[in-house]
C-alpha cells in the first residue's frame, strides 16, 4: 500500500509547505522562485519514469511540456475553456499523441531511441513554427481579460501556483506508485535486460508505450499551467532543447531511478542555475558548470546523490525511495 510508505507522507508535507510558506508570507518573488523549482521537479520526476525506471534516454522530453502549453493555451484562450479543464485536456491530448508515437519509435532500442527523440522534438518544433492556428513562429498570447474570469491577475497567479505545486506532488506520487507496483517491476525488468523480460512474459512493447505516454501527461499539464501563467508561448521557448537536456542533468545529479533523487536533483539544480544566472561573474559559465557537474556524476557517481547516500547509509534504502 502506498499509504504505508513514509515517502508518500513526506511528499505531501513537502508540497503543503511549498504551497503555504510563500502564500503566508505573501512573498511574490519567493513564489516565482519556487514555481521554477516545482517545474524542475515535475520534469525530472517524469523523465525518471523513462530514464530511471525503463532505461530509455529521452532527449526530447520537453516536447510534451511545450505541446501541453500550446494545446492548453489554445483551449483556454481561443476556445475560452476553464483553465483546469484546458490543462487536463492538454495532458490527455499529449498523452495520446505520445502513445501513438511511442508505438512507432519504441521499436528502437537504446541509443537509436535516444536519437529518434531528438528528431521528434525538432520535427514537432518546426511543425508548430509553421502551424497557422497556433501563430506560427510568433506564438500565442493570453489576452489580459482572460485572467479576469479567475478573479483578476493576482488571484490567477496564486491559483496557477497552487495548481503547479499540486502537479508536482502528483508527479512524485505517480513515481512512487509505479515504483511499488507490478507494472513498475516490469519496467525495471526491461531496464535490466529487455530480452530476458520478454522471455519472462513482460509485454515490453505495451509497457514501454504506456510509460512513454504516462511520462507525457503531467509535464503537458504543467506546460499548460506555466504558459498560461506566463501569458505567452512561442516555439523557441516551448521546445527549448536546453531545458530538455537540463532535465537529464537534474535526474543524474539526484539519482536516477529513485523518487526522492529526481525531486532532489530538480530542486538543487534549479537553485544552482538561478544562482549562476544572477551571479555577475559566473552567468556566462552556467553551461560549463552544468556540463562539468554532469560529467563528474556520470563518471564517478552514476547513482547520483541518492546513490551516494545509499552507500553511506544502506538502511536509507528502506525510507528514501
Amino acid at each position, binding site marked *: 500500500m502506498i499509504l504505508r510508505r513514509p515517502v508518500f507522507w513526506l511528499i505531501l508535507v513537502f508540497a503543503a509547505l511549498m504551497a503555504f510558506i510563500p502564500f503566508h508570507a505573501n512573498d511574490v518573488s519567493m513564489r516565482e522562485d519556487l514555481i521554477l523549482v516545482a517545474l524542475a521537479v515535475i520534469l525530472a520526476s517524469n523523465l525518471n519514469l523513462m530514464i530511471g525506471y525503463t532505461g530509455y534516454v529521452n532527449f526530447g522530453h520537453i516536447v510534451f511540456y511545450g505541446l501541453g502549453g500550446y494545446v492548453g493555451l489554445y483551449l483556454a484562450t481561443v476556445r475560452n475553456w476553464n483553465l483546469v479543464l484546458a490543462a487536463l485536456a492538454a495532458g490527455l491530448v499529449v498523452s495520446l499523441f505520445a502513445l501513438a508515437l511511442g508505438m*512507432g519509435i519504441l521499436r528502437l532500442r537504446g541509443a537509436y531511441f535516444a536519437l529518434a527523440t531528438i528528431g521528434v522534438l525538432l520535427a514537432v518544433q*518546426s511543425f508548430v513554427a509553421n502551424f497557422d492556428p497556433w501563430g506560427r513562429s510568433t506564438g500565442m498570447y493570453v489576452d489580459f481579460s482572460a485572467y479576469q474570469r479567475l478573479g483578476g491577475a493576482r488571484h490567477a497567479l496564486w491559483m496557477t501556483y497552487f495548481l503547479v505545486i499540486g502537479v508536482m506532488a502528483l508527479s512524485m506520487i505517480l513515481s512512487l506508485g509505479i515504483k511499488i507496483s507490478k507494472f513498475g517491476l516490469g519496467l525495471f525488468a526491461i531496464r535490466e535486460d529487455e530480452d530476458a523480460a520478454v522471455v519472462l512474459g513482460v509485454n515490453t512493447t505495451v509497457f514501454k508505450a504506456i510509460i512513454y505516454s504516462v511520462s507525457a501527461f503531467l509535464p503537458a499539464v504543467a506546460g499548460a499551467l506555466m504558459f498560461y501563467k506566463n501569458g505567452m508561448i512561442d516555439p523557441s521557448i516551448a521546445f527549448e532543447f536546453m531545458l530538455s*537536456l537540463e532535465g537529464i542533468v537534474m535526474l543524474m545529479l539526484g539519482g536516477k531511478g529513485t523518487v526522492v533523487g529526481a525531486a532532489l536533483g530538480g530542486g538543487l539544480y534549479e537553485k544552482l542555475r538561478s544562482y549562476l544566472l544572477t551571479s555577475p561573474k559566473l552567468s556566462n559559465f552556467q553551461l560549463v558548470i552544468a556540463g562539468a557537474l554532469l560529467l563528474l556524476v556520470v*563518471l564517478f557517481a552514476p547513482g547520483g546523490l541518492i546513490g551516494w547516500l545509499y552507500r553511506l547509509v544502506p538502511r536509507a534504502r528502506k525510507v528514501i525511495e
Partner: protein
Amino acid sequence: MSGILASMIDGLLIGSVYGLAAMGLSLIWGVMDVINLTHGSVIALGMFGMYILFAAFPVNAYFLLLPILAAGLLLGLVIYWISVHWVIGRSQLSSLLSTFAVNMMIIGIGTAIWSTSPYNVNFTLRGFTVGDYTFTGNHIAAATAAVIIALALELFLYRTRPGKAIRAVADNREAAELMGISSTMVLALAFAIGIALAASSGALVSTLFPFTILSGAGYQMKSFVVTVLAGLGKPLGALAAGVLLGLLEGAVTPFIAVSWIPLIEFGLFVVVLVAFPKGIFTRATA
C-alpha cells in the same frame, strides 16, 4: 526547370560536406559503439578554428584545412581521454551522457568567448556562370576537399596497418586483442580521426555560410540523419547519403518555404530509423 537543376547541383555540393561530417560520427559509432554528442560542438569549433586561422594567415582558406585536421586529431585525443575512455564497456547511456556533458562545456566556453553572434570567413574563390546561374568557387572547392578527405580516409582504413586495426576492432574487439592489437590505442585513434573529420567539415562550412557557436547543432542533426541513412561503419556510404540529403534539400527548396525543411528532414530521420534500422544501403535481415 534549370532553376531546380542549379539548386540540386548546389545541394549536391553542400551534401558532400554533410557527408564528411557524418563520416566522423559514423566512424566513432561503428568502431566503439559510442554516439558522440560532442560532434556538433566540434563542428562549431572547426568553424571558429578556420575563422581564427584565416584572420591570422589570409592565404587560400582551403590550405588551412591541414592545420585544422591536425588540431582536430589532438582535440579528439583530449575529448577521448576526458569523456569516453572511462566509460568504454559501460552502458551506452554513460557515453551518451558523458560526451553530452563535454558538449555543454564546449558550447558554454565558446559562448563566453564569442557570444552567439554570427561570424563569417571572408574568403571567396571565383566561380563560373552557366546561363542565369552562378556556381560559386567556394562550394566547388569545399565539395572537392570533402571528397578528397573522404577518399583519404577510405585508403587509410583499407590500405594501412592502423586502418586495418581500426576495422578489426570494430568487427570484434576481443578477437582483435588476441591478435595483439592494443584496443585502447585503436579506439583513441578512431575517436581522434572522427573528431578531426567533424572539425574539418565545420571548417568547410565556415567558408560557405555565416555561423555562430550554436551552428554545429544543426549539422550534428544532419549527421545523425545521414549516418542512419547510410548505416554504421560505412564511410563512403555516409558520403553518398550526405550527397543524397543535399540533393533532397536542393530539390525541395524551390517549392516550399525554407522553414518547413527541418520538419521534412527530421520526419525522414525518424521514419528511416524505424523502418530501416540498418541503413538504406543494407537489405534488412530481420
